[in-house]
């Protein structure tokens, strides 16, 4: 089914999407997307959506199962509190991606903004993953409690940092993998430790990098042959000593 989003308010567009999903539609193509918010918000099931244009904030918020492919850039708060499913962005994406994300996967071909992966959490068999092909802004993985953030830094300009300041502040679970070097002084040393990846890390990392390479038609081996670093929390209880017991 094809929906033309030109001149549609997000409420009207999303009503059409919800109705189509309720009627059992399995493939949706939405064209002329131009900043409409909340696409696939709270949508459950295994519908596939292909968006042409730039969707607005909160793409896939509370989403639970669908696959969304964006032929363009995405804005802020993609995959907010997402439960399951996959979002693939053929471009850059904005700030606060994957906030409180509990499961599923977000693949972004280009760069991601500030505050990505805040409060991500794993639970039982659910393990949220965000892969950024480019670089990430400040506060990556703040208060992160589970899952994996992977920053590949492909086509990085010389001198361009992989992650911004305050990476892993308050982090108490999960893991961040970066392809290349980070200056340990730039990650929050109070909360996280940095070391090269080992075989166990590679096992976690590889399938997601494979999925990324497959989605964007890139050479997996070339991406994986590079050195990766692991940034992980020192403690599951970072604030335990702050209070008078």
């Amino acid at each position: 089914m094809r929906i033309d989003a030109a001149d549609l308010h997000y409420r009207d567009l999303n009503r059409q999407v919800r109705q189509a999903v309720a009627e059992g539609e399995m493939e949706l193509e939405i064209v002329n997307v131009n900043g409409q918010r909340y696409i696939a918000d709270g949508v459950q099931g295994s519908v596939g959506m292909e968006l042409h244009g730039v969707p607005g904030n909160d793409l896939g918020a509370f989403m639970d199962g669908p696959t969304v492919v964006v032929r363009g850039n995405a804005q802020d708060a993609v995959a907010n509190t997402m439960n399951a499913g996959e979002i693939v962005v053929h471009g850059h994406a904005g700030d606060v991606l994957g906030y409180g994300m509990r499961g599923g996967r977000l693949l972004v071909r280009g760069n991601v903004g500030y505050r990505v992966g805040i409060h991500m959490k794993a639970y039982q068999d659910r393990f949220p993953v965000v892969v950024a092909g480019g670089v990430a802004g400040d506060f990556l993985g703040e208060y992160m409690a589970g899952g994996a953030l992977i920053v590949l830094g492909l086509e990085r300009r010389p001198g361009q940092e992989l992650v911004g300041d305050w990476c892993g502040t308050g982090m108490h679970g999960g893991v961040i993998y970066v392809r290349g070097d980070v200056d340990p002084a730039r990650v929050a040393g109070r909360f996280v430790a940095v070391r090269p990846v080992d075989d166990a890390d590679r096992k976690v990392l590889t399938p997601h990098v494979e999925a990324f390479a497959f989605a964007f038609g890139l050479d997996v081996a070339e991406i994986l042959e590079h050195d990766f670093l692991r940034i992980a929390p020192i403690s599951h209880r970072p604030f335990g000593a702050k209070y008078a017991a």
Partner: protein
Amino acid sequence: MNRAVRVPIFRPNEFKWTHDPEKCARCKRCVQQCGFGAISWEDGPVSDPAKCVGCQRCMVFCPQQAITIDVNHRRNVWHQAETGGVLLTGMGCDLDYPILWDHLVLDACQVTNPSIDPLREPMELKTHIGRRPDRVKPGGGEEDESDIPIAPCLELESPIVFSPMSYGSISLNAQKAIAMAAAECGVMWNTGEGGLHEDLKPYSHRAFVQCASGRFGVDADYLNAGAAVEIKIGQGAKPGIGGHLPGEKVSQEVSRTRMIPLGTDALSPAPQHDIYSIEDLRQLIYALKEATDYQKPVSVKIATVHNVAAIASGIVRAGADIVYLDGFRGGTGAAPTVIRDHLGIPIEIAVAVVDQQLRDEGIRNQASIIAAGGIRSSADMAKAIALGADAVAIGTAALLALGCTLCQRCYTGKCSWGITTQDPALTRRLDPYVGSQRLINLITAWSAELEEILGAMGVNAIESLRGSRERLRAVGLDQTTCDILGVKPAGVGA
């Protein structure tokens, strides 16, 4: 940088525990009842003063009334000198700030304006919570300026809701007692930010489901299970401070309900790091409305702070259907004592200024106001509604009904009364059916008293009392406070 090193200090005990061996039946019940492990048996009960928190469980359960507990010394400075830590506490502020409810009195009818006899006249306590359309189209149907769909209002049988208390901060039995009472009384309970436990789903049609910075237990099913969704920005006991459920309280069941790993800290930072402005708040409000197909009213809960009126106005303009105001006396499961006791403003002031601001801006119809944080009785409830609230929320009063003795040690997770603990040996002390009946009794009693008050005032529906500040008078308040409350001093007639 944390330079603290524990340095023990010799100091008087906080509580004086005495036991009369003459009366003692040597049943050892005191030893069994103490959740804090303070009492041991050495040919008679012996209390470890370092562990006693004065919760009075042993005293109440002693069949011979052989135990007495007195407050001896507050020991905060000693405790900090010893540990170098931030002091924690539970429940609400207990400092001696003036309670403005006790400076406000209600009007009554005499001779010229007859009262209504609630013994034989129907009195309507039903209250509707949520957004009303800006205009009503003559001849039926609703017409709104915008075409934004309006979620149906919540219908409360009495203008009382239970305040948010998460599973984790309180035991499942305590939450179940509250949920059952809410369903039975036709009012609302609130999940807090702790998810919705499987056992409480039968009561979810009477629940606010909360979404806060930690997003604990929040998914599409959860959002649609409740009758309304609430975004928690702040809490009266700890304005500007987030939640922090220590890892040792994250049991298997709590982990399952919150959908987080076992034993890790459950951190809900104070700023929601996706909300730095009214515009950002609007984005989340509408994300929730979209996820629930505009079928659930969205509430935004804030702590009452200096600029509360402007903030509430922004919240309503951001699309909230309910503004939940939590005054500085509101309770908590855990907060730094210094924050609980010194930040925020009284709910009496906040209700008055928020109601006035929304009226002045012509947007009062767009949201209901719930007043919380220091509602101690049906009288406080009536006064809050006369000041401009649509309904009140009770937390501390509800826990008192479940047996709480206000020892303020909720944060330890050792509650001897089985309320704020996850220890199965302690939680089973609270029978949810018995607890629920006590809460039903409390709501029944307050509702009956509210009917008496309304009758005396000559008002036959609670919604007619809302915002009737003319029916309030101030006793012993300065003119500025009277002006802020919009209430005349006693002695000034109509």
